[in-house]
């Protein structure tokens, strides 16, 4: 799973650069321009730290919230095999969230602060998870499309300039391929089934296609922080470049599956060597970013409930350690 940078608070990243020590800033700019990795204890501009903290923590939140639409289907999986696969995938998403929280923590924000920002609604996560999973084919579509879009985004992030983020991405990318393949495999199997099952696959495609394209974030001409993020090698490719790559890779897969893409304007452009595709409804995107997604409230309610209901486990573990520590102290 992946989140692109969603907060577009005015001037949040650009303004404070001026107050940095010019010599340190110049040395930093030279290092990133030279494709060197920045490590936690290295000097970095505040705006770099802030942009990365936001991007990595949003990415982590997306992995964690991403478990919810899938968890919904665990007890409804059609076979033990599919249930085991789905469990493994969900466990991976939790793991991805943990790698990313750890990477974000190296920038000086605590886990507690990040979790709290998620639970109070201050932090964003990928818009894609505020859409409902209505039929079993949605689980396949999430693996194929949503994780497919995530892979497009995450592969270049393996070379992002911040070392801990890049290393987390290497680990995530290794596991993500399984997620996409199991989703496509699930859909292939349904396409061999009854007309009703094939209709379920098409229905899932119709609902997930556009939100998947939106996952790459706003168009380049409306993505104010992109230029700086690219100069600092946080991002390696622009939103529109990645979106185009995803469309080009995915349309033939839809054809192979035997379903249509819900876009009447979609057609191969021989001259460009790319697919042309229809206009994205950015009003919908921004509404979902604002928290107006179809199941946004339900997701946060489920997330907070999971946290609260797990509190006794955390408390018990802490109490156990406190008692052990007291015993060690008494024995010493």
């Amino acid at each position, binding site marked *: 799973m992946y989140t692109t940078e969603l907060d577009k608070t005015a001037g949040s990243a650009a303004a404070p650069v001026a107050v940095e020590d010019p010599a340190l800033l110049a040395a930093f700019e030279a290092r990133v321009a030279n494709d060197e990795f920045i*490590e936690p*204890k*290295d*000097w970095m501009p505040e705006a770099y730290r802030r942009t990365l903290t936001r991007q990595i923590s949003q990415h982590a939140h997306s992995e964690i919230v991403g478990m919810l639409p899938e968890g919904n289907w665990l007890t409804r999986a059609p076979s033990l095999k599919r249930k085991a696969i789905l469990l*493994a995938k969900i*466990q*991976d998403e939790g*793991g991805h969230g*943990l*790698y990313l929280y*750890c990477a974000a*923590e190296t920038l000086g924000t*605590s*886990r*507690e*602060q990040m979790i709290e920002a998620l639970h109070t609604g201050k932090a964003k996560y990928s818009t894609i998870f505020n859409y409902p999973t209505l039929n079993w084919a949605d689980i396949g579509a999430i693996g194929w499309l949503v994780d497919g879009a995530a892979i497009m985004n995450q592969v270049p992030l393996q070379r992002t300039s911040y070392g801990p983020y890049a*290393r*987390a991405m290497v*680990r995530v990318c290794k*596991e993500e391929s399984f997620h996409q393949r199991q989703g496509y495999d699930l859909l292939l199997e349904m396409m061999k089934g009854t007309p009703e099952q094939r209709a379920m696959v098409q229905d899932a495609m119709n609902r997930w296609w556009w939100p998947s394209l939106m996952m790459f974030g706003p168009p380049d001409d409306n993505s104010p922080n992109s230029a700086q993020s690219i100069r600092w090698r946080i991002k390696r490719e622009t939103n529109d470049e990645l979106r185009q790559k995803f469309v080009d890779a995915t349309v033939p897969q839809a054809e192979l599956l035997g379903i249509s893409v819900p876009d009447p304007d979609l057609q191969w452009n021989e001259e460009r060597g790319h697919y042309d595709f229809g206009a994205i409804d950015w009003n919908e995107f921004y509404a979902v970013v604002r928290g107006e997604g179809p199941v946004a409230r339900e997701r946060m309610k489920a997330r907070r409930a999971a946290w609260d209901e797990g509190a006794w486990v*955390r408390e018990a*573990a*802490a109490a*156990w*350690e406190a008692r*052990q520590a007291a015993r060690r102290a008494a024995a010493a």
Partner: protein
Amino acid sequence: MSKDWPLWEVFVRARGGLEHRHAGSVHAPDAELALRHARDTYTRRMEGVSLWVVRSADIVASDPDQAGELFEPAASKVYRHPTFYDLPDAVKHM
């Protein structure tokens, strides 16, 4: 003051004969749970045969701002490298 559990650094030995390498970190209240979390987080696909965990606070690190001076002697003492010595071609296997 953060209520987070302490942070532990995780080191994984990929297979017998190899060294433990840093894989990432986990939060845990004690060493035993740190190992369990490390197992779940970093070795879901046979990535390792052995795990180490150590409290992050116990790691002493060199200062990146001092890296220049700290590691400079390696560059100025070229005679530490075998290629410094220009031997006759007649010398074999050295």
